[in-house]
């Protein structure tokens, strides 16, 4: 019974957080396959490094994705058989209904326009639901820097969307 509850807890945690990890990884990776590999490797590494037997802290997973993405970008681009065999899935960043699709495309487009240092902080704060302290730990920057970048990033997003949202 205890093993089942652990498994059920894990599955719940994966389903709850995988989308957030994937959103962050998609912004870092050059293709969908790399993004999924980043998430898988980061979850595995964070699990191994975590001192608890349950799921690892989400901030640790984000930090691992961030670090591994940097390593990946430095390595030679390598195309895997999986990427050749299967067509690239549409890399939409957000789930959206028909009504929201236009809004989703607007926000995604705006996110891609702002500098990466702002984009990653905005992603971790709004959709990663991390605190500024955790964001600082994840990205290796001071907490105040994380807060400043977040404010700059959201301001830029609002400018780009030109008040469509608010």
């Amino acid at each position, binding site marked *: 019974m205890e093993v089942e509850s652990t498994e059920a807890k894990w*599955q719940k945690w994966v389903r709850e957080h995988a989308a*957030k990890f*994937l*959103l962050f990884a998609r912004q870092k990776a050059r293709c969908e396959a790399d993004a999924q590999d980043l998430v898988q490797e980061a*979850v595995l590494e964070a699990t191994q490094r975590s*001192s608890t037997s349950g799921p690892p802290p989400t901030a640790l997973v984000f930090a691992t994705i961030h670090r591994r993405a940097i390593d990946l970008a430095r390595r030679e681009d390598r195309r895997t058989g999986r990427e050749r065999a299967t067509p690239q899935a549409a890399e939409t960043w957000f*789930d959206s209904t028909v009504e929201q699709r236009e809004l989703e495309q607007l926000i995604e487009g705006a996110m891609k326009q702002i500098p990466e240092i702002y984009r990653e902080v*905005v992603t971790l704060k709004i959709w990663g639901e991390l605190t500024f302290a955790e964001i600082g730990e994840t990205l290796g920057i001071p907490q105040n820097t994380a807060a400043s970048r977040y*404010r700059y990033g*959201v301001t830029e997003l609002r400018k780009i969307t030109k008040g469509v949202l608010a």
Partner: protein
Amino acid sequence: MNDPELNVFETELKKLRPAKASEELITRLMEGRQHAPVPTPTRKDGRAHPGLLWKRILWVLAPACAALVLLGVLLNSDRNRPTRAERTSTAPEPPVRITSAPEAAREEAEDALEIDRYLVASFETVAESPERGPVRLRVDQWLDTVVFKDADTGIAIERHIPRVQVVPVRFESY
């Protein structure tokens, strides 16, 4: 942009949910977790659990003790073996000793095999373990010379085998 406007904008952004991960990725994450090694228990201060530390000490001591026992057996058998002068002497051979087959085979194998171990270098170093912090290691470089002589054919086979032995040493940190 003032804070109330910022809050409204944030609220609108949060209405967007990240795209769900595919079932294939979910399955990969679950399977990967099942194949991950069980995290080693650690205390809140990050040091290894005492039970785990004893296990590690035993893990090092057990092969070391086995190696010492083997060395003792080899040295003992070497001491009991007749010297070359004795073997090549023209003195009348002692009466044949009747032994059991396994014992005879073991003695014959021991006579044919010579192993010399030379310690080439020995030093200590400190390695950085991502989980445990600094780990002190003693590194011994050995050169094993193994000579096998076949008394019947007179063929001698000699091999020089370099060997590195790394032993973790308890690290005292202050």
